[in-house]
């Protein structure tokens, strides 16, 4: 509903807002955050938090590009497919690291992922020797760019990716036993334990799923700029968490709204877009507006809860 309101506002501010080109652009740009936020929703519902997603995205992007540059496989299509697989494996491993460290090491996820955030980002900076890693072969670049800029029956691939990941995320959270276990663990760890649920396993898997979501975001992100540097994915973790919270998921865990998360990610992107298209507020204030949105969203939720 808030999203619809914003769209109306968008049209009022600038008629170009509803142009097909603009909408496609907004959706495509929100792919990264939306995809990552789906994973973040699972992690948060399970009572965790992952601050490392932005840095993880940077590291995985770097690894993927290095692999593309290695020329191990001659055929560009096969090479790109292998790079995608590598991305998923790398993302899952990063997530596994976060998950195991926080559950087996019994460390607050905030601390663990704060640590891994530093590790991941610094590894990328080291791989890039402080600069950026860019896809060298123009053939590969051209072939891969289809993933971001191409479309299927007129629907851009990134939009399909958001839809696919969100449906899968919602399916996991709402329809599977695992999803219910995630909610139970986030809602009350003791009850889960006394009900014979392995809290450590359930939580670790949320991090692995988060890693996979980051990997999917990377797969779509790499063809966009064809390079990765130490500023890749900077601040994504906070934007993703914002999307989750604005979407109505409780930060303490136990209650999750997968479609709310998607709406949250779109709201954030739409706001940015409106501000770019209008001249009302300086675009440098995007961060402030997004910050205000979080607070307003929370106040609105509290008001609704009290009204009940």
């Amino acid at each position, binding site marked *: 509903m808030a999203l619809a309101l914003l769209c109306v506002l968008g049209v009022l501010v600038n008629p170009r807002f509803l142009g097909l080109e603009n909408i496609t652009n907004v959706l495509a740009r929100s792919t990264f955050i939306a995809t990552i936020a789906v994973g973040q929703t699972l992690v948060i519902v399970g009572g965790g938090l992952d601050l490392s997603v932005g840095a993880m995205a940077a590291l995985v992007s770097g690894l993927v590009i290095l692999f593309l540059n290695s020329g191990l496989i001659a055929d560009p299509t096969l090479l790109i497919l292998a790079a995608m697989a590598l991305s998923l494996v790398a993302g899952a491993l990063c997530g596994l690291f976060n998950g195991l460290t926080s559950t087996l090491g019994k460390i607050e996820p905030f601390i663990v992922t704060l640590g891994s955030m530093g590790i991941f980002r610094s590894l990328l900076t080291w791989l890039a020797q402080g600069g950026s890693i860019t896809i060298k072969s123009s053939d590969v670049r051209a072939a891969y760019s289809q993933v971001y800029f191409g479309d299927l029956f007129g629907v851009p691939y990134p939009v399909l990716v958001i839809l696919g990941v969100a449906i899968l995320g919602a399916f996991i959270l709402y*329809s*599977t*036993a*695992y999803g*219910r*276990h995630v*909610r*139970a663990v986030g*809602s*009350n760890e*003791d*009850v*889960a*334990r*006394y*009900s*014979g*649920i*392995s809290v450590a396993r359930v939580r670790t898997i949320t991090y692995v799923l988060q890693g996979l979501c980051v990997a999917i975001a990377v797969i779509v992100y790499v063809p966009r700029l064809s390079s990765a540097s130490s500023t890749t994915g900077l601040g994504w973790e906070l934007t993703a968490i914002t999307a989750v919270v604005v979407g109505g998921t409780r930060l303490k865990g*136990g*209650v999750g709204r997968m479609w709310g998360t998607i709406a949250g990610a779109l709201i954030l992107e739409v706001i940015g877009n409106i501000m770019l298209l209008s001249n009302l507020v300086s675009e440098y204030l995007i961060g402030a507006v997004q910050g205000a949105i979080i607070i307003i969203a929370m106040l609105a939720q509290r008001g609704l809860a009290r009204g009940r």
Partner: protein
Amino acid sequence: MTPAAAPDAPLLEAVGLSRLFGPVEVLSDVSVAFRRGEVHAIIGENGAGKSTLMRILSGHLAPSRGAIRLDGAPLALRGPVDAERRGIVLVHQEIMLAPDLSIAENMFLGRELRRGAAVDDRTMNARAEEAMRVFGVDVSVTVPVQRLSIARRQLAQIARALGAPHRIAIFDEPTASLTPVETGALLKLIRELKATGIAVVYISHRLEEVKAIADVVTILRDGKHVATSPAAELQPVDMARLMVGRDLLALYPPRAPAPTGEPAFVVSGFNAPGFAESASFSVRPGEILGFSGLIGAGRTELFEALFGLRKGGGEIRLNEAAQRWPDARSAMNAGAVYLTEDRKGKGLLLEETVATNLTLAALERFQRGPLIDRAKEGRALDEAIRRFDIRIGDKGILAGQMSGGNQQKLLIAKMLLLDPKLVVIDEPTRGVDIGAKQQIYRFIVALAAEGRSVIVISSEMTELIGVCHRIIVMRNGQIVGEVAGDAMTEHAIVVLATGVDVSAGEAHK
């Protein structure tokens, strides 16, 4: 309303109090008068309106209609702080202490003693120690509250409430988690309060206790005032009848004779470090075994360790097969379940629906591929509601909105979905009203009749004597004895539990 013509005018008076929650009237037109130096018990089943009445009197809730009078003057309480300032303190049923702070820090929270700019920890600790000693409890007041047992937290909470200056003290089920010895100390304290002219309001399910302590008893049922009469004129059985509104059949169901046969569950030399040492016992199929002891005797901890819920080790055999249970799941797979005493903290997800809670431990039985089979889940819920008489108007209700009795029935139903051979129930009737209690005892006996081995851990000796074939008593982490058949008397258990023969004139320290 008859005017207060009595020579001793009421100190606090509820006049025609009503309270609506949405369209539901949970309290309707209740008038009660509380006098100085009098213990006034309020009894009734869960949902009778006791808690609502207390929350109104202590300023936590505003009445929809009616008035409160203090010293004959109308009083509009702005909140609990306002009530406390006027000398009305409420000892909550739920533990409301900051878990990371110590007993002393909690006791003086918001009214810290100062020396200059700093807090005066030494004096506060000394006073807290003194307050706890009244209960005959030897406990360090500087340990964080979360490391204490529920009983000690309860005592700390009572001490905290009474630390404020007060004229009216309201106790909401203060003994729900206390053992007989601690209960005795609390009742003594209440008599002392009464002697100093304080008006005491006492809410309890335990009718024997009400009979022992109260001067006046008021009975509520379905939000309405049923009767107020001097305690001397009422026997517990009369109170129960007035509460339930019909004659109660015998509280305890008839028991099958104690089974003979080989034991199904055998524990030998089991240790739960810091809580229980070399525990050895066994239970037969169809047998109901009780575990008694004072709070802190290590009963709950022993079973939590057995079920892999805390550290421990020793030999466990179930139906001849050696067992190793590193977590609750492995015990469940072997056919053993443990129903926690901490229903709200460890047993149920209070913010989830009844169905979600019901199937949580046995979810794999409700899966079709990766999906949860909601239809099957719904059928299981209907079955559980029917079999265990879980009373909910709306199936979408959250577990946290249910009464204590219904929560306990739900917890039993949840664990029985696993069709266990061994069922351990810890404090099955804590916070449960008398009607539901009677049903739960029947469920326990029925479980044994189905050939399951049942272990009941309880602080209420009468219920263990009422349902068990045999009772094991623990003291300080050790199994110190066992009574069975006609030898199961409160006296025999107390002697074993305390190590002191009370009747011999030697009082507990």
